[in-house]
């Protein structure tokens, strides 16, 4: 089950099922260097401007609480943090809703390739999470271009039908 949803020329979102759980993957090229993109993904002041308010211990092994622009809120744990290319966090560690979010960055000329995956999602919510992540990474693209992010909810509603289609494949 893999389907591409092309809403922005530089970002490709796919959803798939692995061992009965959902995986959302956002692959894209961002118009900034790898160190700047890494800081957008790890600096709490910058995270607050496009995806989430994060509060807690952000060292490897540390736990934090996050409140996303989507309204989702809960605990997380930093498992891998290798600047500037590899970040892996576990959300709601030990809980029923446990998922893993992984970001991999690769320098690409004057830009940076970024793959973000969230794994372990309930299959029945896969479309909602796919649309949600697409809205998040579009906000990231806006943030690194020094534009204001759009309203997450409006964009999520717009993107949901195409992800529902993708999740059915």
């Amino acid at each position, binding site marked *: 089950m893999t389907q591409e949803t092309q809403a922005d020329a530089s970002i490709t979102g796919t959803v798939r099922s692995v061992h009965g759980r959902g995986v959302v993957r956002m692959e894209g090229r961002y118009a900034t260097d790898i160190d700047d993109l890494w800081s957008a993904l790890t600096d709490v002041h910058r995270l607050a401007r496009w995806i989430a*308010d994060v*509060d807690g211990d952000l060292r490897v092994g540390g736990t934090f*609480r996050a*409140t*996303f*622009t*989507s*309204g*989702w*809120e809960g605990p997380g744990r930093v498992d891998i943090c290798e600047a500037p290319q590899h970040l892996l966090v576990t959300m709601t560690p030990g809980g029923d809703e446990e998922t893993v979010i992984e970001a991999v960055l690769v320098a690409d000329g004057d830009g940076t390739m970024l793959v973000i995956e969230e794994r372990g999602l309930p299959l029945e*919510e896969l*479309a*909602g*999470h796919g*649309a*949600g992540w697409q809205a998040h990474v579009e906000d990231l693209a806006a943030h690194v271009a020094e534009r204001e992010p759009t309203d997450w*909810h409006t964009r*999520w509603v717009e993107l949901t039908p195409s992800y529902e289609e993708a999740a059915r494949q």
Partner: protein
Amino acid sequence: MDVVLQALSDPSRRTVLEALSEGPATVGELAALLPIARPGVSRHLRVLRDAGLVDVRKDAQFRVYNLRPEPLVEVDEWLSRYRSLWESRLNALQTEITRGKRRSSK
């Protein structure tokens, strides 16, 4: 009822309830109303949720909070026992004022 009164005892939480009385809202929208950071708003929402005064609707990542007025019924019933006391005192005061006016107008 203790847990409900406890939840109502904080001005930030009352602001949240007031906002939700006008319709559902996300934690981000509620945070915009309060002079505190979002993790603080989340803590207040947890207290309100534990007291049964708000519930959360979930749709994948999307979370929206709604007011649940049901626990306020118990508080209202408790207050209503005292309402009759102050109402009868206010009526007595009203009678006294009217009587005084009548006397002074003579």
